[in-house]
């Protein structure tokens, strides 16, 4: 039988028949999605800061020591993020003796002594400093890429050099040379 291309009811029937027999997906509860949405909202409330601070520090680093500027910028960001209720972790893989708790020194006061799982789940930010990358970070792009947003709960985002916070990237972090 020849079917007219003007009439798409045949194709729609095919899709309907297909949809009917598909097993229902095992989706998370709406409460879980809302909790993640709230977490994301908290991240976004401070997410513009790393880029802004990185740009400012980049300008200043032309006259001031870059490493000192980097640490100063990191300090400002950590302080503001804490004030906004967002815990910022600062990865310091070179901190010998703190291998099990590399972020200990930057935990906010209410988390000192260990955070509960629920607290950690609401901790959406991770910030890496230059010690996690071997490559130099004098270029503006590299400096921006040092600020990485991630989450201990798997709900994560990171700064994209070109487009701002527009992609999920829980599993990779860019260093100045592009390595994870």
């Amino acid at each position, binding site marked *: 039988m020849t079917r007219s291309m003007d009439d798409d009811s045949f*194709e729609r029937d095919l899709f309907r028949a*297909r949809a*009917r027999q598909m097993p229902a997906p095992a989706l998370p509860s709406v409460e879980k999605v809302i909790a993640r949405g709230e977490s994301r909202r908290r991240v976004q409330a401070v997410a513009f800061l790393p880029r802004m601070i990185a740009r400012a520090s980049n300008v200043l680093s032309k006259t001031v020591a870059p490493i000192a500027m980097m640490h100063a910028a990191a300090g400002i960001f950590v302080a503001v993020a804490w004030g906004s209720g967002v815990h910022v972790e600062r990865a310091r893989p070179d901190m010998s003796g703190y291998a099990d708790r590399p972020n200990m020194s930057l935990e906010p006061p209410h988390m000192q002594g260990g955070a509960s799982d629920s607290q950690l789940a609401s901790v959406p930010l991770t910030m890496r400093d230059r010690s996690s990358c071997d490559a130099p970070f004098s270029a503006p792009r590299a400096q921006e890429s040092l600020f990485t947003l991630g989450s201990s709960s798997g709900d994560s985002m990171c700064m994209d050099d070109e487009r701002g916070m527009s992609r999920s990237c829980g599993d990779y972090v860019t260093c100045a040379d592009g390595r994870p």
Partner: protein
Amino acid sequence: MEAQDREAFTFLYEKQAPRIHRFLRDLLGDAALANDATQETFVRAYGHMEIVREPERAVPWLFGVARNVSLELRKARARRCRVFSDDDAEEAMPAPTSHSPTPEGELLGREALSVVDAALAKLSLDRRAMLLMSLDHGLEYADIAQLMGFSLAKVKVEIFRAREVLRETFAAYEREAERGGR
């Protein structure tokens, strides 16, 4: 979050999440990945309550977000593939996942599943997305054009060509069935 917003979001999620999941599974070719992508789509929707409050506007918008999420996941997957496999940097087009049909489905819609899946596997991602949005999910051409960033004419042509592929696939299936029945 206000109670009204929560109610609107819950309604949208319960009504649309299964459809979004089906759409994403067809785009990503992986049911587990589609689960994550569906969740991510609604987490993003949560940040746009002004749209969620208007269901007629929210549905096409959700499909646009879902498509973006699927593209991002595919890029991330391609990157991971490059790390693990240097000799196959180009990501192969995933075919939609095969399903485990229910006994009822075995009887009623086996043809629909295999024909549609086979046809979708032949389509480019954009064409596949447009066909699904139009025929499977009932979006208007104008909405599809807007969320894909294409002209209305292009959307019509792309969907027309995708339908041709679907019909050709079905015709081949019918011919095969006839030969097998003799």
